């Protein structure tokens, strides 16, 4: 297995002191486009996957980003999971799961906060831990989480 420890913007960091670069690199690990991993992935760092991973991913207290070229077929457990690429498998997050507009996800999600962009492709179920709802009225507080607080008027012809 080959790990690409370089960050996305290595070239921009050329002028930074060496110690600072090393510290940054420790915190962000990339699995590049040409990398394929089969098996179990565990770690104590944030991880960005642009390649292919089949198996299981466990990043306790850390963030996983499935990049636009990333394709994973795996059950995932992490603190935050952002899906910009493709995921087939179940995701459990301690904090938040976000499926971006370009993201595709097939599987079940369990997380206290979930954001699904409207253009995203999603098939599966969503189970969010129910939080106590505030007594005060108001759409924003009642909806909570990351849901937009207000929405622009729809311009569809049928919406008078």
């Amino acid at each position: 297995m080959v790990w690409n420890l370089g960050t996305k913007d290595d070239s921009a960091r050329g002028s930074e002191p060496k110690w600072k670069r090393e510290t940054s690199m420790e915190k962000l690990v990339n699995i590049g486009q040409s990398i394929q991993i089969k098996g179990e992935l565990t770690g104590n760092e944030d991880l960005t996957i642009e390649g292919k991973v089949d198996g299981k991913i466990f990043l306790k207290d850390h963030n996983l980003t499935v990049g636009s070229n990333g394709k994973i077929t795996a059950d995932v457990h992490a603190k935050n999971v952002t899906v910009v690429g493709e995921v087939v498998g179940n995701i459990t997050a301690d904090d938040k799961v976000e499926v971006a507009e370009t993201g595709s996800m097939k599987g079940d999600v369990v997380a206290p906060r979930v954001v699904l962009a409207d253009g995203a492709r999603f098939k599966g179920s969503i189970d969010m831990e129910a939080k106590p709802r505030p007594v005060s009225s108001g759409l924003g507080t009642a909806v909570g989480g990351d849901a937009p607080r207000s929405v622009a008027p729809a311009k569809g012809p049928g919406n008078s």
Partner: protein
Amino acid sequence: MRRRTAGEPAVAGQPCGSLARILARIFKDPKPEVLDLGPLCGQTVTYLAQRGAVVTVEPFDPPNPVPAVKPGEPEIEPPPIRFDQPDSRFDLVLAWEHLDFMPPERMADFADEVLRVLREGGWLFLFSLMTPTSAPDRMRRYRLLADDMIVREDTDLAPRRRWASSTRDIERALKKFSIQGVQLQRNQMREFSAHKV
């Protein structure tokens, strides 16, 4: 049931009383199961999930019409309408505008499949356009702002034929349900709420 209050900022949307009544009923169960047939609106899914529901999203593509059979030719068996879901699982199926895009001869099959995945006492909620259109139309996305307030939004889905059947034909297709309400909205959409008994 959560309703907008007098001091709450105005939002663009349609009142949606039937859905509000259904939500009030299903949320008596602390963790009801909801099936959303799409098109996906992330805010609607998270709204219901934050209320405590387990929301399953299965984007459903309405089938094509069954081709007419020429005399002497064998009848063509249409492909079954099947959701990838177990029997009797859901308390609510949100079919949005799917029935409008369903060929009339397949509406009853669709209703049967919804009936299969609903629990006894479960609900079907859908919209249907009052006036049929001749031009192909896009299926819309529904953004739930509150239990009783919804926004109908355009999508970039491919245009398809919208049959927009009469209320009587829809009631016939849903004959195995107990239809609890048909309400006409200001935007000429009909709200149908039906109950599995």
